[in-house]
């Protein structure tokens, strides 16, 4: 690899070929996936790889990975609270573990350990509850106390000085971070190699229905006839569903994140505090990647706000006072499609041929591979796999919700 890189550098990278091709828009496809993020691309990849279905178009309004897939803080974990959630995210972690080999692309998955801090007796109790449920489901997760936390994160103030002292933490060794762009590119290349058409700069402008059945998709580049459409557009999913006359139990909220200037490696683990509303990890480049909770009101604006930066910095400094003079480099927002129970919505809807893989809120990236894998299975077999049955659309009509209190950055 490195020798090839040197050769290419000398030759001006002229012999490098694009990782995926551009195609003219075909008149019809068997399946149209709206949304070129990790969910849409993973689904396209597994449809081709596992089920041999390749007459698929992935439509992306911008460039692939330009939405939530490129804006999240790249944390991967499976220490959720509901048994349904744990089984699901655990399969995702296992798929992520083998992903670099599967895609022949270095996705830089670093299972460095994940700490969820508890600052109150109540949250300590919840962490113990989560640890127990995790262990029963076979997920490596346990409660640890300040002495052990200090060994994992020596620069964190675990004394009784902060306003909310650290009382303990849920330690999840398989959790970690990944290079999110690489995951998207790897899936895109894999899908493209197997015959899937990826159409960037192609905005969906409408859906055509006959007798409550999807028949065509209208796009900014023309009309596509298709019998099946998968809506994988995260923050914009209500707008796409509206084109099919369908209402979703979703509210779009921005989630902001920021990175600091690069520092020498000093933080091995991912640190998350629900009470203080922040999560923090150090990327391979040395930048501290930080996020907090979703914005307090519904919005489609991907703006960065000063009040967020102030709040985040204050909370991070509470536990990492040594970072006081570190500068913020970048600060952005992504759109989260929040559901009432903090669980996704996957599968069939009352509109025939209109499938959803939405409601991914603040936990979409870590579920990319498993949701792609299982949605591909659902599409290929026309039946809902057991693993994603709890996340079906109908649960909101029957009241069978999956209250996921282990979800990130929703501040319960």
């Amino acid at each position: 690899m490195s020798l090839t890189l040197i050769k290419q550098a000398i030759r001006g990278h002229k012999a490098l070929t694009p990782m995926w091709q551009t195609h003219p828009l075909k008149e019809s496809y068997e399946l149209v996936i709206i949304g070129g993020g990790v969910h849409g691309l993973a689904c396209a990849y597994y449809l081709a790889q596992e089920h041999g279905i390749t007459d698929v178009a992935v439509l992306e309004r911008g460039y692939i990975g330009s939405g939530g897939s490129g804006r999240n803080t790249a944390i991967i974990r499976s220490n959720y609270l509901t048994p349904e959630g744990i089984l699901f995210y655990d399969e995702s972690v296992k798929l992520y573990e083998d992903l670099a080999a599967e895609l022949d692309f270095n996705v830089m998955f670093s299972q460095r350990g994940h700490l969820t801090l508890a600052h109150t007796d109540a949250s300590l109790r919840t962490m113990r509850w989560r640890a127990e449920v995790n262990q029963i489901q076979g997920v490596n997760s346990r409660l640890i106390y300040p002495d052990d936390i200090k060994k994992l994160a020596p620069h964190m103030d675990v004394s009784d000085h902060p306003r909310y002292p650290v009382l303990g933490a849920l330690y999840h060794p398989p959790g970690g971070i990944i290079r999110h762009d690489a995951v998207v590119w790897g899936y895109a290349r894999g899908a493209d190699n197997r015959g899937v058409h990826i159409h960037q700069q192609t905005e969906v402008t409408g859906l055509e229905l006959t007798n409550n059945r999807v028949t065509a998709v209208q796009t900014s580049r023309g009309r596509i006839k298709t019998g099946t459409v998968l809506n994988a557009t995260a923050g914009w999913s209500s707008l796409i569903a509206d084109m099919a006359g369908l209402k979703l139990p979703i509210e779009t909220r921005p989630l902001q994140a920021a990175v600091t200037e690069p520092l020498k490696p000093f933080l091995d683990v991912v640190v998350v505090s629900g009470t203080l509303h922040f999560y923090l990890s150090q990327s391979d480049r040395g930048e501290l990647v930080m996020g907090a909770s979703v914005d307090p009101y519904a919005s489609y604006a991907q703006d960065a706000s000063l009040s967020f930066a102030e709040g985040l910095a204050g909370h991070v400094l509470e536990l990492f006072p040594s970072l006081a003079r570190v500068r913020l480099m970048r600060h952005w927002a992504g759109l989260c499609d929040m559901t009432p129970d903090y669980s996704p919505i996957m599968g069939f809807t009352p509109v025939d041929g209109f499938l959803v893989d939405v409601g991914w809120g603040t936990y979409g990236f870590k579920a990319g591979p498993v949701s792609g894998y299982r949605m591909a299975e659902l599409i290929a077999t026309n039946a809902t796999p057991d693993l994603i049955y709890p996340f079906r659309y109908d649960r909101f009509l029957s009241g069978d919700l999956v209250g996921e209190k282990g979800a990130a950055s929703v501040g319960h």
Partner: protein
Amino acid sequence: MLLLPCPNCGPRNAAEFRYGGEYKPRPQNPESPAADTEWADYLYFRENKLGVKKEWWYHRAGCGCWFLAERHTKTQTVEQTYLWEPEQ
């Protein structure tokens, strides 16, 4: 920063308020068994539109009043705010 005009107190920083979600009328016959789907719709489903949206806000750090606002969900322009009144 979002500046929100409270009907009682005038324009204030949005940090003083609590967002109460999209406005929608309550089910007409809440007790009837047929109201289940209406309740599901009322409790969970959202228009979530991109554009001017009618929504509840609560002035928690001010007059303590719940009111309605019409706000654009992308540009954040607040078209108007007013107190709720029962429909005639």
